[in-house]
Each structure stands twice: as structure tokens, then as C-alpha cells.
């Protein structure tokens, strides 16, 4: 026993911290077009390698290359660019609105716009997303009115959920966007159950589950993979790996597993790993998984490799835990810049058109903001009635809540 070494605890650390030079040199990135595109009915056992590579379509020159390319028309791509630009502009305006005290809290998407905007395009009407707080592109790319989003953010009288939820926790059944929960990962298993219901009823609808890299550590994630695998649920299991869970780097949730996509392999779930800053690659992978689910072939897990270029929320300052310029060193670039360059390279877009589009989008967002603020913001204007606080706890208000509402005098 004298020779037995002492044990010591391994606590993973990111390679760099504030003050260090950002370094992604150990981050392996395959060349665009390199990863094969299997048939949707491929045996998960035969495509295990896809969990460890990165599906990329846009190369450094902005050209779409390889077997996952050429799935979208120029019109589709211009619309996709517009969606991402709208989301970015919307975020910028709402960040300012929060700083002005018009709402309590906001969460932006900077750098991650392609993930939700491109994914939405792979779904059909009637399908349902179970999003986290950083997928508002699912709404914008599905023509949800910006004013309604702002009404929710301002908790004003125009909010269909009556100002009950934290800002950005939208809900729209009609737009395939499930009510967001702040308890992370809980909705992953609900998406699986929702899709099981579609299969039980013999319908054609599929679900999409969403989770971040950090929340994959929750038991809900593992239960979801078991259920999805057991019942071959028609669901797309999305993992948005933006490298950071507030201040915690992805290595804390990932442990020694290699990639988040690889979590699916032990469950026999096909796993794709995708360049999350490449609109074309995100769409291609999403479409592959959606087609597979709709063909009754079961779930797919997709890891989107991206980078959270801004703080977690308006309550977060990332310079306290990572180098300030790390976002500039991120090797997969910016999703808006990359799609823009691709379209310009094809002759389907130009700097002039881009500048003009930026101006038009800003006007559109500003007009929506004016309309929403005319109803009210968190502290001014018309807010939901306090009596709304007592509604919708149950379908019918039970006697004890009627009593309490009367006591509250509302």
C-alpha cells in the first residue's frame, strides 16, 4: 500500500483565460465539402464517423462545395440572409431597450443566427420546435410578427401570455414554437413525447428538441435519448454547442466524450456534427434529419458547432472569464458575413444591396418597436391587468383563487 499514489481530482480548464491570447489551434476543422452525405435510411452503425467530423458547405472562398451543397435556391438564400440580419438588428435594438430600462432582461444571438434561421427552413407547417432562449430565428424565419415578440419582451398588454414570463420566453403554437421554460433541458423530453404522440395518432408531424452544450449534462437529456431511441420517435435532437454555458466552458459538460454529437451513438441514434455558422450546412443537416424523422426512421442528433460571440444575457460580462477578443479568433467566422460573401460570389447579391437591406431591416424593426412601445414597456403604458395573474392557473378558476383575487382587489 505504501507505493499506492494519492488520487487527485481532474477539473477541466479551458486553454485560455482573460489576458491570454485566444487559441483555437487544437480545434480540428475539416475542409468544406469533405464529409460524406449518407442516405437518410443509413444504419447508424455505418455513419458513426459523422459524429466526430464537421459537415461544412461554405469554403474559405465562400463557395458551396461537397455533397451537402446545392439544396437551396438563390431566393431561399437571400431570404435566409434577410432572416439572420433581421434577428441581429432585432437583438441590437432590444439590447439597447433593456439598457434603457424598457425591460428587465434580454438574451441575444450574436454569432449563432444561422442555427435557428436555417433550421426553420427544414420544417413543415404543423411541426413543433421546443426551443431554448436562443432560437428566436425559428420565429423570425417563420414570419412571426416582430411586434408580438417585442410585446412579450416588454410584458405589455399585447403579450398573449399576459406578461407572465421572463423576456424572450415566447410561445406560438401556430408558428411551431413551444412555450419556453427557464429550467434548462426540461423541454427536450417533451419534444420526444410530442413526436411520440404524432406517431401514436398516425399523423405526419415531427418535433425538434433544442438544448445547449452545457445542459446536455441534465438527466432530461439522457432520458430523452433513451425514449427517442426506444420508441424511434420522429424528432430531431438539436444540441447547440456555442462553447460556453454562461462562464463554464464546454469541457465541463462534455467530459471525455469527444463530441456532444457522439452522445447519440450509445443509443443507436444517428449523429451529425455541423458547422453552425454555415447557413447552408445547417439547413442540409436539418433537412436530412427532418426527412429521416418524417420517413418514420426515427431520431437524429445534430451538434451545431458555433460560438456565443456576446454575453450569455444582459446580466453577463464574458470578459470576466474568457479573452475579450476570443470571438474574433473563432475559426468558423460569422454566419451573416459568410452567407453574404457566398451570395456576392455567385453574383446573387452585392455590397450595395446589402447596405440597402440593412437600412430597410432597421426601419422595419424600428417600426415594430414603435408599435409595441405604443402599447407599453415593462414600466410604462398599458400592462396586463393584475387580475391576469390569477387566470390560467387552471382552466376554471377554483374558489380559493377567486377568494385570493378578491383579497388582492384586482
Amino acid at each position: 500500500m505504501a507505493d499506492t499514489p494519492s488520487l487527485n481530482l481532474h477539473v477541466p480548464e479551458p486553454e485560455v483565460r482573460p489576458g491570454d491570447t485566444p487559441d483555437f489551434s487544437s480545434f480540428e476543422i475539416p475542409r468544406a465539402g469533405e464529409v460524406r452525405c449518407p442516405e437518410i435510411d443509413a444504419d447508424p452503425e455505418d455513419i458513426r464517423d459523422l459524429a466526430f467530423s464537421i459537415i461544412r458547405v461554405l469554403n474559405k472562398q465562400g463557395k458551396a462545395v461537397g455533397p451537402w451543397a446545392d439544396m437551396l435556391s438563390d431566393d431561399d438564400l437571400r431570404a435566409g440572409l434577410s432572416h439572420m440580419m433581421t434577428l441581429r438588428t432585432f437583438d441590437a435594438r432590444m439590447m439597447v431597450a433593456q439598457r434603457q430600462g424598457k425591460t428587465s432582461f434580454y438574451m441575444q444571438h450574436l454569432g449563432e443566427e444561422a442555427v435557428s434561421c436555417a433550421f426553420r427552413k427544414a420544417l413543415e407547417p404543423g411541426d413543433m420546435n421546443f426551443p431554448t432562449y436562443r432560437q428566436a430565428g425559428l420565429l423570425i424565419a417563420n414570419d412571426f410578427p416582430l411586434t408580438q415578440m417585442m410585446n412579450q419582451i416588454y410584458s405589455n398588454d399585447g403579450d398573449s401570455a399576459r406578461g407572465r414570463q421572463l423576456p424572450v420566453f415566447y410561445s406560438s403554437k401556430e408558428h411551431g414554437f413551444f412555450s419556453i421554460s427557464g429550467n434548462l433541458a426540461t423541454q427536450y423530453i417533451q419534444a420526444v413525447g410530442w413526436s411520440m404522440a404524432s406517431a401514436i395518432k398516425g399523423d405526419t408531424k415531427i418535433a425538434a428538441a433544442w438544448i445547449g452544450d452545457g445542459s446536455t449534462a441534465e438527466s432530461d437529456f439522457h432520458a430523452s435519448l433513451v425514449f427517442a431511441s426506444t420508441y424511434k420517435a420522429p424528432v430531431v435532437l438539436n444540441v447547440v454547442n456555442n462553447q460556453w454555458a454562461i462562464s463554464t466552458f464546454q469541457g465541463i459538460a462534455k467530459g471525455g466524450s469527444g463530441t456532444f454529437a457522439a452522445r447519440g451513438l450509445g443509443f443507436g441514434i444517428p449523429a451529425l456534427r455541423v458547422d453552425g455558422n454555415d447557413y447552408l450546412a445547417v439547413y442540409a443537416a436539418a433537412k436530412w434529419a427532418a426527412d429521416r424523422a418524417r420517413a418514420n426512421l426515427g431520431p437524429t442528433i445534430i451538434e451545431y458547432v458555433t460560438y456565443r460571440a456576446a454575453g450569455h444575457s444582459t446580466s453577463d460580462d464574458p470578459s470576466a472569464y474568457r479573452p475579450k477578443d476570443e470571438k474574433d479568433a473563432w475559426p468558423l467566422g460569422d454566419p451573416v458575413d459568410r452567407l453574404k460573401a457566398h451570395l456576392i460570389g455567385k453574383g446573387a447579391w452585392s455590397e450595395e444591396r446589402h447596405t440597402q437591406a440593412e437600412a430597410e431591416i432597421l426601419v422595419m424593426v424600428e417600426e415594430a418597436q414603435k408599435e409595441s412601445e405604443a402599447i407599453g414597456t415593462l414600466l410604462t403604458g398599458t400592462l396586463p391587468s393584475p387580475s391576469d395573474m390569477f387566470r390560467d392557473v387552471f382552466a376554471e378558476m377554483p374558489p380559493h383563487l377567486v377568494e385570493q383575487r378578491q383579497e388582492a382587489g384586482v
Partner: protein
Amino acid sequence: MPNMTMIEAVRDAHDVMMERDGDIVVYGQDVGYFGGVFRCTAGLQEKYGSNRCFDAPISELGIVGSAIGMATYGLKPCIEIQFADYMYPAYDQIVSEAARMRYRSGGEFTCPMVIRMPTGGGIYGAQTHSQSPEALFTHVAGLKTVMPSNPADAKGLLTAAMEDPDPVIFLEPKRLYNGPFDGHHDKPIVPWKKHALGEVPEGYHKVDFGKAAVRREGSAATILAYGTMVHVALEAVQSSGIDAEVIDLRSLLPLDKDAIVRSVSKTGRCVIVHEATLTNGFGAELASIVQKECFYQLEAPIQRVAGWDTPYPHASEWDYFPGPDRVVTALNTVMEA
């Protein structure tokens, strides 16, 4: 009317309702082919197919979480948590999700679902097969919580639960599955087949939530009880000779406040009995209601009889279980005051 055990009554409610409503799906651990460890879903898979009654992995959060997804889709899941003690991994899904879905989405997404849980002790199940967690549910806004004390109510309340537009926690006192256990563990139990409350109406039978039942009329004191403790209370009344009224609450939320106030106002004395631990138990809420609404009619301080504030023990089960002797002591206390 046929006589049934509580197990048969629960199964019958499933059968009648699954026949009437094609959106009801039933699943849980061992629930499908085998029909449940207590046999409450026996025969349902054979009759309705494995799309509507099936086995689930051992993951309570998975069972409840997937059911929430199904409910928001438009199905009506009626799921089983094998023992209420196993519920805790699913508590986040129940509290933060099912209970709040209607509220947080402004009524856009709702969770009409039933979560059945065999509950309570008296079966030598120790701390992981004996708990009574009702107060963990009645404390949560957005949940309804019911606990039947007999086969007829089990069927009727389960029917109401399956028709309810909101999530319902359905607690089945497993010590009552085969007969009205009165706390005398050393005596043979009277089977439901030979008991009036074992008579269960055939076909569709519904007992509305929020309505208590008077199990014994009396004028000297009121005993508020539910589940197994209803029968313990009746036995205590019998052995003490005190003319107490026994109220079976049946539905804890919504609660039949009127029935409580009516009875205690009449008798002026109140004993509250539950099997769950005492401190912060549902009895505290009942005591609060009684003192507020019946203060000027009360002749004596309210007494509570409950499980001790310890985990449920194995060897000392019958020292822990709040049996009829402790209820008699409480009755004597309120009568002597």
C-alpha cells in the same frame, strides 16, 4: 352493482375511459404487457394495443416529461409512477412544466394528464415504498391532487381526472388496494368484496373533484381524513365510543372547504389525521382553515395525528403508522378540553 377491489376499480376506470376516448394513452414501468406491479393496468395492452398501453424505461422524468409533450399535442396520457416514492426525479417536470404550462403560455399549451402513484405505507415498504407526498403537490400552483379511500371513489375520481383539462395527481393508498385497512395490522383485513364501499357502479362513473364525503355522521367532534386514514378514523370512533363525524376529503385540491366548515361548526371539535409526516403536512393547511373559519365555534384546540417527522422505518412500521389508538387519544384530548 358489482363488488371490486380498488385495483379492479382503477383498472375498470381505465377500461371505460379508454373505450370512450381514443386519446387516452397509458404507460409506465411494467404497465404494458404485465399490467403493472399492482395489476392496475392488466389487460389494457391486449385490448387497446401497444400504441395506447405500453412499457416505459425506468425513468420517471422521462415518463412524465414525455407525457407532457403528448398532452400538449392533444393526447390525454394517464401514466403510472410505480411508487410515489419514485416520483422525485420527475418533480421538476411536474412542478416547473406540467403545472405551469397553461399559465406560462397564456392558455396556448395545456397539460390534460393524470399521474397515478401508489402511495402510503403499511406494507413493510420502508422509506422508499411508503411515503405520502401529497403536500408536495398541494403546495404547487396549477396541480389538482386527489386521494380516494375506496374502490367506488377510486373509479369515480380517476374518471374525473381523465376528463380534467389540467394535470391531476392521483394518489392510490396501496394499503387499501385489497380492503379497508383500519390500522389493525395484526387482524385479517375485510376484503372489499364484502364491504359496502366495494360496490362500484358499472360503466361510466364519475366523482367530481372538490366534494368531500361524510363517512359517518356525528355530533361530538369532527375527524378530517383522507385515504387509508379514513378507515383508521372510523375504527377509532368505533372503539372510543365518541360520536365523531368522519369527513373523507377525497380531493385535497380543490378542497371542499364548505364541508369542513359545516361539520366543525356543528361539532366544535376537530381532529386532523394523515399518514404523511406532521410538520408542514397538509393537516397544517386544514388546521389553518378551521381556526380561521370556525374560531368562535371551537371548544378545544385542534389536534393533529400524523406520521412522525422521521423517514418511514421498516422494523418500527407500526410505531410510526398513525393507528387508531393515536386517533382515540386525540379524540379524548379534544373531548376533555
